[in-house]
């Protein structure tokens, strides 16, 4: 879909990009990563001709981009940047409509598309369409930025640290949303970031750059397991085992058959339903199936009063979503001091749980790259 062939960009004496060759397949997410000044943003900007290469050849969909007028080329490439760059004098709807308007779509089609995109990025269309950018939070602005990039349904997205300017919690949420949207839309994406976790989480392939040169171009697993040299090894970090967890989604190791009891039950019924003879825990749910806490059989042995066996929790803080990464689940468990954590959907309905033992299991019997984790360090 996109090929870079021996592309070089020179600024005076400095080589910003040095003989870069790269191929990105259709529907792939290619993450460009590297220390600052490595040429990743320059590379991205050469693809939509905001920067002209000094030498080399770039093709998009088989066409040499120099044969296409830059404006026409760019209208076919979605573009989202870290600073978002929303137009402050236009409403959210007008911002999103930018490229469709440039392409001369009619009003009805634009309005329909704007509504569709707001829903896609998880913003209520009634509430947000007429807001102005300054009324948005950082995370909302980034969502609008992504919606604007997707507006004319371009087959290719160019994203320059699109989630860089928000707090870590919002970033995780945006990454999960992006992964969901990408599963749905299957765009070809070039994604620039300096965040290794983000790269591992979102990439099909990672292009690790340094000083304008490509150091390794491989799948996240490839970079983690078979780093080409010491720089790649160091850049991926010492916590590579943990980083692998980023690649595994909670629902792939989730235990769906968890015992539940209704919150209105008496302790005896709870003990019975939780079948204290064989296991210790049961999740307490309300009539709608929303997690309210859990019941611990050990409390019964003390013969304490009715509610003593129940630990109440707020599902918004103490559970994870099925599309979260195992790393996130593990870190929440460590933070909360739990040995297992409930998995719920967006409204708190219990779907199952993930236990520490399940995460260990993913290491030992999961797919091969995870299994190799324990032995890799002992290689000669």
């Amino acid at each position: 879909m996109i090929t870079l062939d021996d592309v070089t960009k020179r600024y005076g004496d400095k080589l910003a990009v040095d003989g870069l060759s790269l191929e990105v397949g259709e529907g792939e997410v290619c993450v460009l990563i590297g220390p600052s000044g490595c040429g990743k943003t320059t590379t991205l900007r050469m693809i939509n001709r905001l920067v002209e290469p000094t030498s080399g050849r770039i093709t998009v969909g088989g066409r040499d981009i120099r044969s296409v007028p830059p404006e026409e080329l760019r209208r076919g490439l979605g573009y989202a940047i870290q600073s978002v760059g929303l137009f402050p004098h236009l409403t959210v709807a007008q911002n999103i409509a930018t490229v469709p308007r440039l392409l001369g779509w009619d009003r009805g089609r634009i309005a329909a598309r704007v509504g569709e995109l707001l829903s896609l990025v998880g913003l209520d269309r009634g509430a947000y369409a007429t807001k102005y950018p300054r009324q948005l939070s950082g995370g909302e602005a980034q969502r609008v930025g992504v919606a604007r990039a997707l507006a004319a349904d371009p087959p290719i997205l160019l994203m320059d640290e699109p989630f860089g300017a928000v707090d870590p919690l919002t970033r995780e949420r945006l990454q999960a949303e992006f992964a969901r949207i990408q599963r749905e839309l299957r765009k070809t994406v070039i994604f620039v970031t300096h965040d290794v976790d983000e790269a591992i989480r979102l990439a099909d392939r990672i292009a690790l750059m340094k000083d304008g040169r490509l150091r390794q171009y491989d799948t996240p697993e490839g970079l983690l397991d078979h780093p080409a040299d010491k720089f790649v090894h160091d850049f991926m970090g010492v916590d590579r085992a943990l980083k692998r967890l980023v690649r595994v989604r909670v629902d792939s190791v989730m235990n769906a058959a968890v015992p539940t009891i209704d919150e209105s039950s008496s302790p005896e019924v709870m003990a019975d339903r939780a079948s204290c003879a064989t296991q210790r825990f049961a999740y307490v749910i309300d009539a709608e199936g929303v997690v309210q806490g859990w019941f611990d059989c050990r409390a019964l042995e003390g013969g304490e009063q009715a509610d003593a066996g129940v630990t109440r929790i707020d599902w918004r803080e103490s559970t994870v979503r099925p599309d979260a990464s195992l790393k996130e689940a593990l870190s929440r468990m460590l933070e909360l001091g739990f040995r297992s954590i409930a998995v719920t959907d967006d409204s708190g309905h219990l779907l199952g749980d993930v236990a520490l033992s399940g995460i260990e299991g993913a290491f030992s019997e999961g797919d091969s790259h995870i299994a190799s984790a324990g032995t890799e360090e002992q290689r000669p």
Partner: protein
Amino acid sequence: MEPEAPTSEPRAASTVDRVGAAAALIALSGAVLLPVYVLRANRIVSGTDQPLAVGGPAAWTLVLFAVGAFAVALLMRGRSRERAELACAVGILASLAWALAHAASSLAPDPASPARVSIGLGAWLAMAGAAALWFAATRTPTDRTARTGAAALVAASWLAAGAWGGLSRLSILREYTLQANTFWNEVGTHLALVGISLGLAVIIGVPLGILSSRVRWVRTVSLSAAGLIQTVPSLALLGLLVLPLAALGLPGIGPLPGIIALTLYALLPVVRNTYLGLTQVDASAIDAGLGMGMTRLQLLRDVEAPLALPLVVEGVRIATVMTIGIAAVVAFIGVGTLGVLIIQGLGYQADDLILLGAVPIVLLAVVADAGLRAIGRLITSPGIRVEAR
């Protein structure tokens, strides 16, 4: 001892509106200590001061409003104080209109006689005090409807006092009836001169401002040249224009050099604000626009221009107020602006004639200022409007 006592003391003191109190005192002392009306037998002779009471009941409401404003400034707090002060300012100005009208009609009852009543120093001081009170009341942005309503009330009371008839015996309006034809001619010339010069300044200045934001040397040359022109006094600039115009075989006096001078003065605010307006546009918005496939022209039209326009209008507003003032000076090179009345008045030592030239210039400037501010608000997108609290 209360630990917070020392800090609460100065805060309590600072809640007294000292500016408002001073303004009220100025208005009050003008009304009671200085002559508010001066009766003169004709245009030239010096007049005799008249007691405040000649103004009738309105004279006493004038004093009441001034005393009231002083009390309000000392005793009231916050939003209600601002409202009360604004009401007092309106009261002072409205009372003054009726007091002057009453005094003029009782002192010089015969419209045919050359006797006239001049606005005395005390009345000017009362007006200045009321104006200061007005600004004290609107220092923090209050809602615009209150201010607009107050301004309308003042204007209405002056018009009503004028319609009642007394004001026409005031010296300044005596001068007006004598000069009505020339006066309106001069207003027309004044406005035409300002209008043409501003039009030219916008036609030249906006493209120059755009170019300045794109090309470094254009910016250096145009901004420093326009800045240099601003430092030349207006009379000197008119003199300096004589030589180059003569070299081109053009007249050194008359409308042409006047228009050239006014245009040159108006250029700086227009060029500078266009340049500033364009350069303050967020770089990431420009990057996003280009990255999404806008051409340079589309970017200018759809992004940069709407974001820069409020500042451009602001520049035009500054230029307008400035050229309305400077156009008076152009009377020296034989263009019949309102400045002619001022020059003649100075020549005859006729204060009222000077006022007939000066007061309309001030009014024109105030109206243009308010009008262009309103236009500026209108063309500013709600997304970038600075909210008044």
